[in-house]
């Protein structure tokens, strides 16, 4: 049993929090994992990605080879597109449809989404509105984690337990919003 995931987004969008939840859930589930992330300069609004590898056996490389990824999980549609060639031919793209426009030459969103839909399996969720519905627009990353959750080899209880541990210290409203964001993302993915 193994699963390799490319997490993608823009610096500051919270992909390290997604990685944090997956890491801890993997530990709880007794899996091995390696997760390579980006710190430093790129975190200032640049394209960031994290290679997330889960397995019940030895994991050698910290990086996923091209064609090795089972999933691209992105908080931003253009960033999802950047890593398509990491996916194996029947891999899945789970992405937000909400563009993060901090560059002058951002392409037309419809074209980006159309290109994503060309992947054999894709799930596109409106993370901005779902996060707002959950109570905070900041929870878009957790919406995406929820959207991906049904396709992950991790136990849902481990994911939810980690989200609780992560946000408990920030007060009940923040915790509730993130749990709701997870649930809404999950529902949206199953309905899509």
């Amino acid at each position, binding site marked *: 049993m193994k699963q390799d995931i490319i997490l993608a987004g823009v610096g*500051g969008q919270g992909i390290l929090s997604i990685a944090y939840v997956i890491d801890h859930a993997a*530990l709880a589930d007794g899996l091995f994992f390696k997760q390579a992330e980006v710190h430093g300069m790129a975190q*200032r*609004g640049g394209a960031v990605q994290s290679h997330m590898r889960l397995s019940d056996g030895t994991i*050698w490389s910290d990086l996923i080879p091209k064609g090795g990824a089972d999933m691209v999980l992105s908080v931003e549609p253009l960033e999802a*597109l950047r890593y398509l060639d990491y996916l194996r031919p029947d*891999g899945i793209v789970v992405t937000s449809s909400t563009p993060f426009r901090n560059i002058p030459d951002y392409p037309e969103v419809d074209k980006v989404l159309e290109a994503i839909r060309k992947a054999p399996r894709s799930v596109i969720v409106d993370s901005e509105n779902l996060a707002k519905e959950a109570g905070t627009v900041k929870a878009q990353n957790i919406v995406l984690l929820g959207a991906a959750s049904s396709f992950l080899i991790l136990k849902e209880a481990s994911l939810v337990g980690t989200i609780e541990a992560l946000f408990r210290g920030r007060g009940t409203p923040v915790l509730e919003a993130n749990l709701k964001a997870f649930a809404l993302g999950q529902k949206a993915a199953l309905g899509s």
Partner: protein
Amino acid sequence: MPRQILLGDEAVALGAVHAGLSAAYSYPGTPASEVLEYLVRQAGETKAFTAVWSVNEKTAYEEALGASFAGKRSLVSFKHVGLNVAADPFMNSAITGANGGFLVVSADDPGMHSSQNEQDSRYYVQFAQIPGYEPSDHQEAYDMAREAFDVSERFGLPVLMRLVTRLSHSRSAVETRDARAPNELKKGAGQDWILLPVNARRRFGRLLDLQAEMTRFSEESRFNLLQLNDKDRSFGVIASGIAYNYFREAVAADSAPPSFLKVSTYPLPERLIRELVGHVGTILVLEDGYPFIERQLKGLFGIAGKTVLGKMSGPLPASGELTPDIVRRALGREPLASLPASGLPLAGRPPQLCAGCPHADSFKALNKALEGVTGSNVFSDIGCYTLGALPPYNAIHSCVCMGASISMARGASDVGLYPAVSVIGDSTFAHSGLTPLLSAAKANTDMTVIILDNATTAMTGGQPTYGSGPGLLRLVEGLGVAKEHIRTIEPLPKHHDKNVQIIKDEIAHRGLSVVVAVRECVQEQRKKRS
């Protein structure tokens, strides 16, 4: 012991703590910052040791060396170029030796994710002729850090651990063991630590005498692994550090992988290398960074009857970071089948200053002040403000190394460039800007130094700074800059016109002036609020 989730940097740090660490020092720099970040957090909780952000790497090195002199176990960490700053005490500490165990952690950045070069710290290990470690995963990072202190005390030498970005910034679970108690105080002997020629010659002789024993230590290390394939004597691999993982990844499905030697300790384990080379005809060397092993293997004349492949000749690129794909190809394996790239032109997304960043307003004011001025030269430095090089600002013309903005502006001014402007952050100024400003003040050099005081070391995640606030102004004055030419501005849009005028006035002044732009980094402000 339970498994703990740690970054590679943190695994080294925790290994050091469990080895009985008493003191740790560092200056922030990607990808090494998280070593001391972790130690500062731990020290705050347990009070069991000291962990300090130093003013620069040389200072950090000497502080750690002093702790070792006192008999305690100490650590210093920095990014690869930080070791250049600390190179003076580093080289000399191989002569004085270490008293308490002393671990030097140097994190290289192959591919230059966040650096000016991709120098390879293993050359420093060889240069100083001390033992070195190169972990390939988190567990090794932890285990080696623990062991390194014992090895340091066994040889009476500092030990260097080389990390690379991919390991520093990768997370995995690590099994930890019980902590050892710290050392008692025990001063170093003066005849070893006073590097007068008479002592230094004797100590250098001792270092040379130890080399054969160090090679034996390396040959016997449990971290090196030689595995020979008796059926296939044509081809073998030498892989060090993280490159070993890419090799194993590529051959994971083989029933019998090619012969290989995993190298994790330095000096090179000569006997193991001889065994591998003796066993096969063609040797592929896989190493992230410079062709350190490959070059030594080949020497000037190569090995008769053998082919050595790697970065110097053959299938690996000479620069940049290794990846599993590059290694796969070098091993002659087909790439995995993958989805095709989308074909849509993908706009790049380079890093940029945060929305509301004070540096943005400083650069806007500086650009305006220099509008229409021909031949202006803006020397800059290392920090978030280096992003002022990118559009829409295009505001700076150099970024070389910590503090170089001030010394380079002076040199350019000395030979007649006008206006010569230097832009440097408060933390970088404290790190390496004081001494060049001192000499420029003495000469009353015709230049304008703009210190961006955002009250933090921002690029690396907000570590403390030594050169900020009213203390910074006193420092600048104390260095000898004329009080009337020390000006402060608050970089905010509403002060734009006023700020432009102040910068213009100080550029017009044909002598040294310092403009301090004071406004806190918005990320740090945000952290304080939440």
